[in-house]
């Protein structure tokens, strides 16, 4: 059924349709509306056979999820940014134990400095924790990926993180097609655990594993993610058969057939990129042969699919809302691994950190530059070099130069008067 609702509400309703049994969460912007929505549905009785727990920290949230999932209940939680970091020990524990928990990460920057706006640093900081990581481009995809996530997690016995841009998607009202309970039931069977705490068949879960077996256990986690490379596209096909739309999969391309320049990105910025690509392909705008590769599954990283998508292009530009401090791009580094030996020219653009808007205007200028081969290997989009250099000079001048963030804010002046 078509609805005009907030992205968070769409996710809440989708999760509710998946017949979750235990939901536990701790509030953090910008995930709050998701959990509030589900909480209300449980309390009012609309969502039955579901325990909703208000926990005392994100670490507790993931821990409650571990206990619940190990006892055989379909379990869900949501977090972002600092909250994800606070639960990291438990995040690794969950994947190490092979528990099919589904978690929404409403992507938000990590402090210091504290910042509540969108970028991908939170999820990507956990790219090696063993969870499957899926990135949604629209609210439709966000809600649909949650439905796929439960099935994927339970088939593989591996937890799944569904990532959606905080505020940009979570707090945006847009049209979505909400599935029916019948459709979801047809797609998602009840949870059949591979391991469960059951008095009838006692097992010990979580024993120490020494050097004799640790490598094998860890390899098996990697092997499961390799299985996911096959399962994710299959899941998308099954989904299309039941729900009638193409959602999910490892990657998708746009205008790629004859593209000489390929733009690679994840999440909601793909929408803006596609609008720019359409405009730049117009003859009156230069008729640029430019295409897009959207990565949906970041973990497992689809090396083969990425290489395939970039096979015929001359150059690629990775536009990412993340920064590996000390080296450059995170997504870019993963992409480069896929295209080793292909002789392609690659560019990394770090953009949108901490919620800085990525505008059509800036992208047009950027794509223009890259198609002329005039871009540096690493670019920070719309960076105010004046402010940066002023601060570097300040630090050179005196030892007690003061907190960086506060100095820069003072240089920028009143923020309220700006639109973007």
């Amino acid at each position, binding site marked *: 059924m*078509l609805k*005009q609702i*907030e992205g968070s509400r769409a996710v809440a309703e989708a999760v509710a349709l998946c017949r979750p049994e235990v939901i536990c969460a701790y509030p953090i*912007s*910008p995930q709050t509306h998701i959990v509030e929505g589900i909480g209300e549905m449980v309390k009012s009785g609309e969502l039955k056979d579901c325990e909703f727990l208000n926990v005392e920290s994100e670490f507790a949230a993931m821990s409650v999820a571990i206990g619940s999932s190990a006892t055989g209940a379909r379990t869900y939680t949501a977090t972002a940014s600092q909250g994800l970091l606070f639960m990291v020990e438990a995040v690794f524990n969950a994947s190490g134990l092979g528990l099919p928990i589904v978690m929404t990460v409403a992507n938000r920057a990590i402090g210091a400095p504290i910042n*509540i*706006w969108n970028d991908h640093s939170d999820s990507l900081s956990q790219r090696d924790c063993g969870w499957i990581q899926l990135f949604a481009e*629209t609210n439709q995809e966000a809600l649909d990926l949650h439905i796929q996530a439960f099935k994927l997690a339970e088939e593989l016995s591996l937890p799944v993180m569904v990532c959606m841009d905080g*505020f*940009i998607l979570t*707090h*945006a*009202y*847009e*049209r979505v097609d909400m599935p029916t309970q019948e459709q979801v039931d047809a797609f998602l069977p009840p949870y059949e655990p591979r391991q469960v705490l059951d008095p009838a068949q006692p097992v010990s879960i979580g024993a120490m594993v020494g050097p004799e077996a640790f490598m094998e256990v860890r390899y098996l986690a990697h092997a499961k993610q390799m299985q996911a490379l096959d399962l994710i596209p299959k899941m998308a096909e099954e989904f299309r058969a039941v729900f009638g739309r193409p959602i999910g999969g490892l990657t998708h391309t746009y205008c790629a057939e004859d593209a000489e320049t390929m733009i690679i990105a994840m999440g*909601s*910025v*793909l*929408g*803006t990129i*596609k*609008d720019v690509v359409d405009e730049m392909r117009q003859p009156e705008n230069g008729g640029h042969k430019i295409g897009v590769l959207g990565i949906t599954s970041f973990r497992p990283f689809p090396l083969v699919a990425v290489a395939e998508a970039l096979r015929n292009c001359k150059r690629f530009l990775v536009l990412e809302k993340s920064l590996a401090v000390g080296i450059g791009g995170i997504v870019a580094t993963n992409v480069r691994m896929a295209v080793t030996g292909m002789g392609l020219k690659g560019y990394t653009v770090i953009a949108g950190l901490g*919620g800085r*808007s*990525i*505008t*059509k*205007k800036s992208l047009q200028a950027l794509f223009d530059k890259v198609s002329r081969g005039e871009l540096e290997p690493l670019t920070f989009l719309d960076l105010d070099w004046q402010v940066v250099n002023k601060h570097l000079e300040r630090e050179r001048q005196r030892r007690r130069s003061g907190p960086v963030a506060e100095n820069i804010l003072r240089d920028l002046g009143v923020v*309220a*008067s*700006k*639109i*973007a």
Partner: protein
Amino acid sequence: MFQVRIHGRGGQGVVTAAEMLSIAAFDEGRFAQAFPSFGSERTGAPVVAFCRIADKEIRLREPIMEPDALIIQDPTLLHQVDVFAGLKKDGYILINTNKSFEELGLGDFVRDWPHDRLCTVSATDLSRKHVGRPMPNVPLLGGFAAVSGVIRLESVIMAINDKFSGKVAAGNIAGATEAYETVRAAMAAACREESTHA
């Protein structure tokens, strides 16, 4: 694509206004996207919200840099925030006020502006009258429907019923309707005036 930017202060329902606008457009079978310029909740601070309306899927995610219409819920922002930034030539300007554009110090700004693109609504007064609270967002939507014709009043009413219920919904509908009719009347009067001067 039609792009509306709404300016106000926290607590004046700016975000709800954008959402209702998007719901109204949805009710007319169109695609719409509404989102706030995000921030921690804080009453009284300047807030901006955006709404895009189109006939096909909206992929664009940037803030509205070049609005086709501006709705200004709080005139104290006029000389504090650059509310007019990027406004398209001859774009719609709606302001919640019982003053005129001249009295607000905007005389020079709108000197050559087509009059049928400018609109004032005493939205705060209307909401106090019909809902008992100074919440100008809904009457302004009624005014917007009237001045722009981008959405119908019926759709605004459907959006009100989506967000509110009972007496509050009824009051809001009354407020929006009165704003709509007042603006329509003012436009008709201006039209007659122009044609007699022509």
